[in-house]
């Protein structure tokens, strides 16, 4: 789930973008600018696996799941809850690899407020900036109620409002915005959304059902390459960080390195040590589907084992 | 050029295009400054000048009455009074019935008559006209010529009338001045040998033809 907060004229352009693609080329659509959360994708040895991959960086509002559904990208990065909602609407996309085993989403607050939990935050007044339409936000609303706080749209990675106002709380990735804020002198405390019981896979590599059926070998090769890429990135992020920093100069190099380090526990867990990086379980998907149905975000519950494939 | 105009005269200024007759008129109206020489008016008291342009130049968002009354409005005259004066002027140009109409609803000739009425409401001592009837058809032109001449006689204004129509100049004026082609000079300055009262009959009169011939030859030579 992401810091997408501006509208792009999504689906129609996704339709049009499908023209002009050279045969055999694989397009991977990212849902944000190049940063450590995509490190493994940039480090992956695609050519060694016989793949000609073009990485399409994204930004605020990039409609990756519609792009994959429409065929304007063969692979995309989405969050698991997005995928469940898309499947329930008839968009046949399938997850292949989950970068973040645990949801790195959180809400960051100023430590001076001495808040102890999310429950406290939603009782303490002030402003909370989040993307109200996202399932996690609706879950928080259901659980804690929003009537004591002022909800405003998330500024998407921009922390200037947060820095300017002690009573401003903001949606973030635990290992990203808080680090930037600390560098700017703020004393930050972060509450993971997973504390409220919401923990979908995040930064998930997906492809369309039709690509899987038509070209299973290349899909397998893609997953293998990505897995190797993440291993390489976890072991030594520096060269890939340099490449990504050039594409995305908005984050300072030291912060890049710090974030790459801070995100490790979300990527490599006991589960992945057992079953390989990026692996997923049916149980996690089922939990998510049930949660989304309860929230009313989906009418039809897709089958959990349709949502992902282990390649 | 050295030109003296006496009060009460009806003087026509003729000349080929580009000779500066319009500019001369604007200088007399104090709308433009001469680059050399000066324009003096004696005696040096304040008096009202009115100007009639080639195009009627009415304000399209105002009625005929409001257009005619405009000069008085700008001079601060109260509404009842200026409407009364405007109505009189409109009557004098035979447009009394049209007072509530808008310029868009009038013919070219009618608009010019409103422009004339407007020129008269401020009781000008000096009336300047710059080819006012050039864009109108002949019958209307003849009618307006006659009306203008009558107005001049009844009100005793000084009229300076710029035109490139020899027949019009001859018909209307007591005195005709022909300017040189490149401006700044007078080719001919002649008091016309024609009766004081002018009417349509005069148009067929050989005396008019005679004057026209003189004016024509002055315009042609160069």
């Amino acid at each position, binding site marked *: 789930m992401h810091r*997408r*907060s*501006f*509208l792009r004229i*999504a*689906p*129609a352009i*996704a*339709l049009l973008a499908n023209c002009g693609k050279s045969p055999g080329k694989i397009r991977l659509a990212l849902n944000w600018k190049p940063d450590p959360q995509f490190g493994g994708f940039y480090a992956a040895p695609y050519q060694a696996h016989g793949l000609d991959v073009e990485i399409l960086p994204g930004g605020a*509002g990039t409609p990756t*799941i*519609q792009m994959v*559904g*429409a065929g304007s990208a063969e692979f995309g990065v989405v969050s698991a809850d*997005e995928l469940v*909602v*898309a499947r329930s*609407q*008839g*968009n046949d996309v399938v997850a292949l690899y989950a970068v973040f085993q645990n949801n790195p989403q959180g809400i960051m607050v100023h430590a001076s407020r001495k808040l102890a939990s999310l429950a406290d935050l939603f009782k303490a007044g002030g*402003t909370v900036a989040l*993307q*109200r*339409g*996202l399932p996690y936000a609706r879950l928080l609303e259901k659980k804690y109620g929003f009537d004591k706080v*002022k*909800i*405003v*749209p998330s*500024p998407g990675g*921009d922390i*200037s*409002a947060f820095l*300017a106002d002690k009573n401003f709380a903001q949606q973030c990735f635990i290992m990203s915005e808080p680090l930037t804020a600390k560098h700017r002198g703020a004393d930050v405390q972060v509450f993971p959304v997973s504390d409220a019981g919401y923990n979908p896979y995040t930064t998930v590599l997906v492809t369309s059902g039709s690509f899987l059926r038509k070209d299973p070998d290349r899909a397998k090769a893609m997953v293998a390459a990505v897995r190797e890429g993440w291993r390489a990135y976890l072991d030594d992020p520096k060269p890939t960080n340099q490449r990504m920093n050039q594409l995305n100069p908005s984050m300072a190099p030291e912060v890049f390195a710090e974030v790459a380090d801070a995100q490790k526990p979300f990527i490599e867990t006991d589960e992945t040590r057992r079953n390989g990086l990026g692996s997923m379980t049916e149980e996690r998907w089922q939990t998510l589907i049930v949660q989304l149905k309860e929230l009313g*975000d989906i009418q039809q519950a897709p089958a959990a084992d349709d949502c992902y494939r282990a390649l | 050029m050295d030109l003296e105009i006496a009060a009460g005269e009806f003087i026509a200024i003729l000349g080929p295009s580009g000779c500066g007759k319009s500019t001369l008129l*604007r200088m007399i*109206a104090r*709308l433009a400054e001469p680059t050399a020489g000066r324009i003096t008016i004696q005696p040096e008291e304040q008096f009202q*000048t*009115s*100007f009639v*342009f080639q*195009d009627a*130049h009415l*304000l*399209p*968002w105002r009625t005929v009455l409001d257009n005619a009354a*405009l*000069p008085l*409005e*700008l*001079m601060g005259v109260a509404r009842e009074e200026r409407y009364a004066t405007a109505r009189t002027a409109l009557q004098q140009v035979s447009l009394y019935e049209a007072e509530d109409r*808008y*310029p*868009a609803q009038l013919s070219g000739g009618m608009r010019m008559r409103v422009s004339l009425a407007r020129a008269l409401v*401020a009781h000008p001592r000096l009336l300047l006209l710059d080819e006012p009837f050039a864009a109108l058809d002949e019958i209307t032109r003849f009618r307006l010529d006659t009306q203008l001449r009558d107005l001049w006689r009844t009100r005793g204004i000084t009229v300076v009338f710029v035109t490139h129509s020899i027949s019009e100049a001859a018909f209307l004026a007591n005195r005709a001045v022909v300017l040189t082609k490149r401006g700044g000079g007078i080719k001919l300055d002649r008091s016309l040998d024609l009766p004081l009262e002018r009417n349509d009959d005069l148009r067929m009169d050989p005396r008019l033809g005679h004057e026209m011939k003189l004016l024509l030859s002055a315009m042609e030579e160069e």
Partner: protein
Amino acid sequence: MRRLRSVIPALIPLLVVTAAAELAVRYGFVKSYLVPAPSSVLRAMIESRAELFGALLTTSVSALVGFLLSTVAGIAIAVFLSSSRAIQRAFYPYAVFFQTVPIIAIAPLLVIWFGYGTRTVVASAFVVSIFPVIANTLSGILSTEPALRDLFRLYGASTLVTLFKLRFPAALPQILTGLRVASGLAVIGAIVGEFIGGQGLGSVVDVARTQQRVDKVFAAVLLASVLGLALFGLINLVSYITLRRWHASEQ
């Protein structure tokens, strides 16, 4: 009645496209999660009508206030610019800034200055819509016929009187043209402001998008278009009333 009948030809392409879209989605030629079937947009509009119409009201108020502000300020600035060549040369380039600045980029700044809420939305609508008002009003004022200006001078009218009795009324058709353009821009500006500031139709679009509710997005966008049309129609009405007796455009 005649005006109503003249609307019918415009409705025909709309009906054809709507029917075509409905069939295309229903028979699977276009995926419903990319382009919603018109029937589902209608359903979304009915289901969420309270939310949508509340949002429409909010956006309408912000767009209207922003538009009125840009009308008043735009005309005032144009009058100021018209007073001398030197002033125009000194300040007009800065007015052009309002035309060229990308609102998406400065909207976050607006939030910092005006906070989250209606003030930012109004500011956004204002910034986006003011330039056409300035440009068209200035052009109208400066293109008053010289002969008419001479006429006013002859009778001793001051600059101010000439401005109000001559230049302004003469500029009215052009001012209204500027207002027509500005009205649509004010709606766009309001919606963009709402993406950042979080209310009205802009917020509905943003939230529905993250929920992958394309039908609701289209429903909100449709209402925004209706708002734009309504404002445009309002200006046309004003134009008709003020110009009908004397300007060629209304005859």
